[in-house]
């Protein structure tokens, strides 16, 4: 009864101020650029992507419940694995390739590390200074890979003569290369099985080469994805698409639009995660596409 007698002025003021702040947050979110929020998020969380952590927990739980390997442990992508063994092509060694997949040069100038976490592609996105102008992290991306680190079993750094003409799968900023990276969350070296090209949502994603759509779908880590099967057992994967414009079994031509760039799945910004496989082995797509 005593509480009722007191005029709740203090509570009203508190609530009013809080509602004003909430309104401000909504308006600010609407009118101010994403970079501002990203800046605050990074400085609060140290670059840790909590949605990615949640996805990782969900994936681990599924692996535990269903008794299947965790995607990080299983390099195999079942969708891709079913697509056939590699042809017995003649391989041409490329002496220029670092077997340990050193980080790309354009990722070393102060920029790291919004991340995509989860999925066997170990999708750790290197973001260069142009992409994240406000971030000045101190991670040493040029640190040597720890002694004893080995090339993953299903990675093939060999350069093959492709039996078909190849096209660039997307235009934009090359933000992440094929090879080992310092994981922005676990701070250890992990392998990135493709490369990333960032551009605006809705940008064209094109077929790497003539082929057939082997699969389309949605994955927790990949988001909307397309898998194309090309001649001689080559397979390409296009992940984090905003939308997919082809369907399974459809024939596609090199350079033809198959999807739109987006940020679905475990991703912190619109980009294409592109993988190239030859049978069960991941190839370095940078060797076949001019990324400059």
């Amino acid at each position, binding site marked *: 009864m005593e509480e009722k007698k007191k005029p709740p002025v203090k509570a009203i003021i508190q609530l009013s101020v809080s509602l004003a702040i909430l309104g401000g947050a909504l308006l600010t979110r609407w009118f101010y650029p994403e970079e501002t*929020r990203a800046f605050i998020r990074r400085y609060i969380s140290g670059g840790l992507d909590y949605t990615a952590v949640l996805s990782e927990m*969900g994936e681990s739980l*599924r692996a535990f419940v269903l008794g299947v390997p965790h995607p990080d442990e299983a390099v195999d992508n079942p969708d891709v694995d079913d697509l056939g063994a590699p042809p017995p092509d003649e391989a041409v060694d490329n002496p220029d390739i670092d077997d340990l997949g050193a980080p790309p040069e354009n990722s070393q100038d102060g920029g790291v590390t919004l991340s995509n976490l989860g999925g066997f592609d170990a999708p750790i996105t290197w973001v260069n200074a142009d992409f994240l102008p406000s971030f000045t992290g101190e991670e040493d991306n040029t640190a040597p890979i720890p002694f004893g680190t080995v090339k993953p079993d299903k990675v093939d750094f060999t350069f093959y003569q492709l039996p078909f003409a190849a096209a660039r799968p997307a235009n934009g900023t090359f933000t992440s290369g094929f090879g080992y990276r310092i994981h922005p969350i676990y701070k250890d070296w992990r392998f990135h099985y493709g490369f990333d090209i960032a551009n605006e949502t809705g940008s064209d994603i094109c077929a790497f080469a003539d082929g057939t759509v082997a699969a389309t779908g949605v994955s927790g880590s990949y988001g909307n994805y397309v898998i194309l099967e090309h001649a001689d057992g080559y397979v390409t994967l296009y992940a984090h698409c905003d939308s997919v414009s082809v369907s399974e079994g459809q024939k596609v031509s090199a350079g033809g639009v198959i999807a739109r760039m987006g940020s679905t799945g475990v991703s912190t910004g619109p980009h294409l995660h592109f993988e190239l496989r030859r049978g069960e082995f991941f190839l370095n797509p940078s060797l076949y596409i001019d990324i400059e």
Partner: protein
Amino acid sequence: MTVGKLRIRAGFVLLVAALVYLDEGYFLWIVFGAALLHELGHYIPLKLFGGRVLSLELSGGGLSMEHDARSSLGYGKELFAVLMGPAVSIGFALLFSLRDGMITERVAGMCLAHGFFNLLPMRGLDGGRALEIVLESNGVSSTHTVLRTVTVVCAVALGICCIALAVLYRNLSLPLALLYLLMLQKPEKAKIQ
């Protein structure tokens, strides 16, 4: 602000404001969804046992429920209702994890974290409430002292971990989470968090 049995604190609005502003990847909705499922885990057994929900409070500490379970239901049923919150959270985490998909994975992760976090034996959390019920039902006279001690030990352990991780990874969200925990340590009545 009070609407019927629902009490909304300014801290809740501030929490929503922060989450709205920083939200990414449906994080805000996932948090609320997980919290709602958790509270349903408390609410349904309470209603089934004939208990009364006195009020629902939305505060900076999240969603909490005030009830009369102890006086009307007894220790056993109250303990069941308290533990059903984390149980339902973990159950939904398992359920959501069965389906592959971006949102379901995140909901599963949040439910799992929410369930286990609430099992910490700290005052203000379900684990602390369960510990309190067990001690009281066994006639332990120093229930509140024991609970306070366990809470302090947990808080210190968590605090050390938070500070260490914050220093190592320059991650301010962990000390903020610690502040959140400390905020829950206000003396309170029979509540299910």
